[in-house]
Structure formats: structure tokens, C-alpha cells
């Protein structure tokens, strides 16, 4: 409870609180012993001639006031409220949250644990696990990859067979657990002139069968050596590095000439966050099985 920068304010608040409660008690006590003549008025006159009779309140009502005072004191002893005093119970909203989390884990943990023990391919074939995975995906993954998992510009499509880091279920799980950081360095300076960037772009587009200037393609192929370190001499990419296959029709950031040139010139930096600490391994297990099932037919595999 370091909310106060100075010990004075702690005392100030605590004293004010206690004085207010004592003041309420004093008022109650004095009023309980107040007597008035029956039929007398409170002295309050409004709208010319309306007055208020001094009619007694029921006594149980007064006891309710005393009960609130006792409750307030009891509360201040047990719970935080009196300055920086933490209360005898040591209650904290953070610990209450952690307790709820622990309760949820105790309730749903066994179900997740049961799937976590199974092979990912078996989990993928389980319709109940699929439904859980779908819900998890819609909650945690759909923001970037889309509700249909078909991705978005800069965020890969998870329903095709084209994988940046590999499509085996274990690799997918690893990707979700630890995240990925896909870096394409800016190659503009390394390639030289802007004309070279354009040539390489035409060469790369030609690999996917897109329209490209044949002369620029030839010049681009000569410069592709700078890219081959990651994308390979045949431009088929390298899943160990997350370097995409440039010879297929899948374009993570877009396949137009301008976009490819921009990618080459400025590079790309894509991040898949790590979910291990956030979701925990058992949930990631279900998610990985679900994602894998989007591009595979799990029932056939499981029956083998």
C-alpha cells in the first residue's frame, strides 16, 4: 500500500474515517435521548403553511444505524479501508483474482490435461476438442489471423499447406508456445541501385508465374544471390529461418510489383507473440491441434 507519498496522509485518512464513525454514533446517542412534546413540529415550514410533525421513528430503525456502525468498524478491522492498514484478513483484489483463476484451473484443468496427454493428431480428430480449439482460436487468434483463419496482410493464412516455419502439428505448437519473429532485412542498400531492386522484384514475381519483364528478370536473377542466403538458391525458402517460399502463389505482404519492391527495399518485421505464459501449455496443445486440422483431415489420419 504505497499509494501515499507521505505517512501523514495515511494518518489523516484513518483519523477522518474514525472521527466520522464516532460522529455518527454521537449523533445517534444524542437523538435517542432527545424528547419533544407530542404534536410539536420540527419547525420546518414550507409552501406557506406546511409543517412537519415531530413523529417518532421506530426504535428498530435506530438499531439498524447502530448495526451499520458496528459493521463499519468490523469491516475496517478485517478489510483494507483505514488509511494504509491492510486489514486482518489481508484481502487483495489481485489475490481474489488469482483465487478465481485457480478455481477455474481446478475445474477445467483436468479436461485440458486429459487432451494434453494425447497426441496432437488424436486431439485434432476429437470433435469436442475441436470445438474448444475453435473457441480458443476465435478468442485469442482471430484478431490477426481472421475468424476463418485465412489471415490478412502480414498475417499468414493458416488453412493452406504453405507454412513459414513448418506445418507439422508439433511445430505449430512450438510456434504458438514461443512465438516467432520473422525478419526480412532491408535489402535496398545491399542490392545497390533502385533499378536493381526493381529487377529482383520482377525476377521474384516471375517465379510465381506473375507477369514480369523478361529483361529485368534476367538482371534480377543475377542479383538474387543476396537473397539466396535465406530464401535459398531456388527461392523455395527455409522453414528453419521462417524465410518464405517465393516460388508459390502465396504472398504474405502482397504480390504486386510495388509491394514486392517495398518489401525488398525496406524489409519486413513480423511478430507472432508467444502464448506459453499467457494461455499455458494445455490450451496451446488444443489450439495447435485445431490449427493443424484446418489444413489437414484429422479424422483420416487418426483412423490409420
Amino acid at each position, binding site marked *: 500500500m504505497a499509494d501515499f507519498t507521505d505517512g501523514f496522509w495515511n494518518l489523516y485518512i484513518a483519523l477522518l474515517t474514525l472521527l466520522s464513525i464516532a460522529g455518527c454514533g454521537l449523533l445517534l446517542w444524542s*437523538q*435517542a*435521548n*432527545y*424528547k*419533544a*412534546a*407530542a*404534536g410539536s413540529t420540527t419547525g420546518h415550514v414550507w409552501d406557506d403553511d406546511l409543517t412537519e410533525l*415531530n*413523529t*417518532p*421513528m*421506530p*426504535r*428498530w*430503525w*435506530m438499531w439498524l444505524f447502530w448495526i451499520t456502525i458496528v459493521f463499519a468498524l468490523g469491516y475496517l478491522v478485517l478489510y483494507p479501508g483505514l488509511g494504509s492498514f491492510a486489514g486482518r484478513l489481508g484481502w487483495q483484489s489481485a489475490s481474489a483474482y488469482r483465487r478465481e483463476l485457480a478455481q477455474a484451473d481446478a475445474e477445467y484443468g483436468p479436461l485440458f490435461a486429459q487432451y494434453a496427454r494425447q497426441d496432437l493428431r488424436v486431439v485434432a480428430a476429437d470433435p469436442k476438442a475441436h470445438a474448444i480449439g*475453435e*473457441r480458443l482460436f*476465435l478468442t485469442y487468434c*482471430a*484478431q*490477426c*489471423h*481472421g*475468424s*476463418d*483463419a*485465412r489471415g*490478412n*496482410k502480414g*498475417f499468414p493464412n493458416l488453412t493452406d499447406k504453405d507454412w513459414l516455419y513448418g506445418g507439422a502439428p508439433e511445430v505449430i505448437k512450438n510456434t504458438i508456445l514461443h512465438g516467432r519473429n520473422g525478419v526480412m532485412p532491408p535489402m535496398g542498400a545491399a542490392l545497390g541501385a533502385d533499378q536493381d531492386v526493381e529487377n529482383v522484384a520482377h525476377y521474384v514475381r516471375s517465379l510465381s508465374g506473375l507477369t514480369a519483364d523478361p529483361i529485368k528478370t534476367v538482371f534480377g536473377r543475377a542479383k538474387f544471390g543476396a537473397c539466396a542466403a535465406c530464401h535459398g538458391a531456388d527461392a523455395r525458402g527455409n522453414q528453419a529461418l521462417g524465410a518464405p517460399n517465393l516460388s508459390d502463389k502465396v504472398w504474405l505482404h502482397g504480390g504486386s510489383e510495388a509491394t514486392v519492391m517495398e518489401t525488398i527495399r525496406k524489409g519486413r518485421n513480423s511478430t507472432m507473440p508467444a502464448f506459453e505464459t499467457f494461455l499455458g501449455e494445455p490450451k496451446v496443445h488444443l489450439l495447435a491441434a485445431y490449427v493443424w486440422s484446418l489444413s489437414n483431415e484429422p479424422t483420416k489420419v487418426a483412423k490409420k
Partner: protein
Amino acid sequence: MNSAAPKSQVIRMYAAREEIHPREATGRYASLRWVCVWLTQLVYYGLPWLGWNGRQAVLFDLGARKFYIFGMVLWPQDFIYLAALLIICAYCLFLVTAVAGRVWCGFACPQTVYTEVFMWIERRIEGPRSARIRLDRQPWSVDKAARKSAKHAAWALVALWTGFTFVAYFTPVSVLAREVASFALGPWEGFWILFYALATYGNAGWMREQVCKYMCPYARFQSAMFDQDTLIVSYDTARGEPRSARAVQTESKGGGDCIDCRLCVQVCPTGIDIRDGLQYECIGCAACVDACNLVMDKVGLARGLVRYTTAHAVTAGLSAGAIRRRVLRPRVLIYSALLLLIAGAFGVSLALRLPLKLDVIRDRGAMGREVENGMIENVYRLQIMNTAEAAHTFRVGVTGIASIALAEPVEAMLEGASARTLAVRVRIATGAGKPGSNHIAFELEALDQPSLRVRESAVFIVPR
């Protein structure tokens, strides 16, 4: 309440409650009240035990957020019906109060009903009014202790049963009974059974008229709905006064019909004297009417010295027919018209309610994307809620722009009373639709029941 006290008396600002020992009233209105007690309580205590389709007929499953009322399953989305129901109840109260005063208070209010039950128990154990007063004045004895503890034990039993019944509307009664039998109640179930029992015991046993006088907001604002033609329990001053004992009356052959037997005061559950005129404490229970009629029968005078009548009728001496004709006054007609309108709309809306709901959420991550053959694709999440208790398979359709279609046909099976989220892709041909947002609509239709279909509008975005 202090009108009878001398002016010079000194009062304290907090007055102790004066115990009221109402005498038992018998007669037409007392019987009517017992009919109300039986009707309301048979429904209240009996409903949780009623089965329907293999489940409890009326069950409010807070955990699953599903509210079963006979053949109907309401979801949190249907909360509007609760609001409408409360509005209907409010208008019923307005209407009834404008016509007949606080009859709700006197005959059907739970406070009155449980007080009636508790007073019945009290009479069985402690005896009639005079015996109860005597018992209270007595010093403690074995007999007094035995009677008092028997009364409180009986009250506690009724109260606990009431609390149990209350919670049985939220936890299935079979489960709850098993939990109670094995002392395995959940903390909240235990709390609510005890809390509701304590409230019943305290309010019907101890607080009684104090609830109506100091706690209940309706008691106070119902007075604002009274007018000169509202039926109220009234003492006929012109006929009754000057009041005097029977012996004096027969001797002098004069005076009013009131023989000042004070029975009307003794039966009053709120401890007032109706002969002082309309008072805010009066709950319109007509116990004094029953008591006075009985006395009038005995002394051979006409009934109705204390009766249900209107302020207007007393001053102008209207006949019963004239009172009835005055019921049809603008205030009553307006209340009735509004009530009929709202209740009608409520009924129609409930009858036409489809047990199927559809929410459409467009994926915000992407505007629209270009797919094969230059088609434009948008992605949507469909939240489908099958609120019926039978499983259905639904077909998704989409309309609104020429050439609009789903990327692949979508059919979804939903279990009874379940929800499911589907991601669907919608495509239009190049050039169809205008750049920017286009209005489209999703349609959901049950394959086995074509009448079970909903339509939900959405937006399709074509990139500029």
C-alpha cells in the same frame, strides 16, 4: 397514530414498537383473504415440484443463464420481457389502486399473506387475542416458555420451507433436496435459504405492520393514486355517531349505530381505529368490515357501518350503482387502455417469439480481400443461438448484392439450448456492389422447420 394521545405528552425521537395483538376476523373478506393465501402459496410452494419435458417446469438457471418457464427457454437477451412484465405489474397496481384502493396490500401482498399464515400459527399455539395479551403480561413460566418456543419453532419451520422453496427456483429441487439431506449445500444456496427464511420469519413474525408503515415504498405512493371515487374502507360517521355503549343507547333511544365495542380496532393488523377516517397505515384488508358486520348482525342493525365505499359516496350519499358507474372515469380508462395495450403487445411478442437468434459480427482485422478471379471476400462471425430445446441443423444464406454468395455452403448443427459461433466467408463478383459499405443480410433457416428462420442485417465492405 398518536392522535389519541394528549398534546402535552413528551415523546422520544425513537419509539419502541407497541405489540399489536389482532383479534381473528371472520367473514366474507377474511375468507377472501384465505382464498388468496391458498392460491398464491399453492403456486409458490408447488411450482418447483412440477416437471416438464424431463426437467423442472420453472427453473432460473443463473449459472447457465437460461430461464425455463414451462415450454419456454428465455436467455439473457430476452430480459426485455422481464422489463415488460414489471411494467405490466406496475400498471396493474395503478389500476387496481385507483379503483379499489390498497386491496393488493390487504389480500395478496406476500407480507400480508405470510403474516396471515404466521398469525394462524400464533392463534393455534398461544390462543386468541385475550389469551395472547395475558400470556405476554405473565412472568416467565414453563407454560409460557413452552408456548413461545413452540410458536417460534413452527414459524422457523415455515420460514425455512419458504427459503428452501425460493432457492428451488434456482437450483433444481431434486438436487437441492439431496444436498439438504446430505448437508452438502453450496455456500450461496445455504446463504439464500437462510436469508430468505430469516426475512420471512422476521417480517411475518416480528415486523408485520412495521414493514407496511416504514419500509414499503408502494404503501406510500399508492395514496397518490387515490381520488374521491376510489373504494376505501370507511366508517359511516353520519350513521355511527354519536357512538355510545349499547346499554346507554337502549336507555336513551338516541345516538348513532356505533355501539363503541372497539372490535374494529381489535381486529386491525396495523392497530388503527378506522373511525378516525382514512389513515396511511390502513392496508385495506377489511378485517374491520367483517368485525363490524358481525356486530351489526348481533344487535339487529343494518350491515355496512364500516364498508368499502368511496369518499364521494359518503359525502354525497351515492347509491351502489352510482359508485359502480363512477368507476368508468378517465383515470381508470387510461390505465386500463395502457395496460391492455402493453399486455397485448407483450402477449403477441411472446407468442411470435422465435427460438432462434443470430448475431453478425464482421471481422475487423481485414476490410475486404481480393480472392481468386478478382472476387471480393469479407469474413463474418455468426453467433447462432438455438434457444429451443430441440436440436436443429441450420442453413446459412446471404442476400443483398447481385452475385453475393457464401464462399462455401454452410450448415451448422446446434444442440437444444446451445450457442455456436461460425466463421463464414462471403464473396461478390468484381464490380458488384459499390466501393465502401453495402447493406446485406444473413438468413438462417432450420432445415427441418422452414418457419424457423431469422434474418440479420450486416455490412459488406468493398475496398476502394
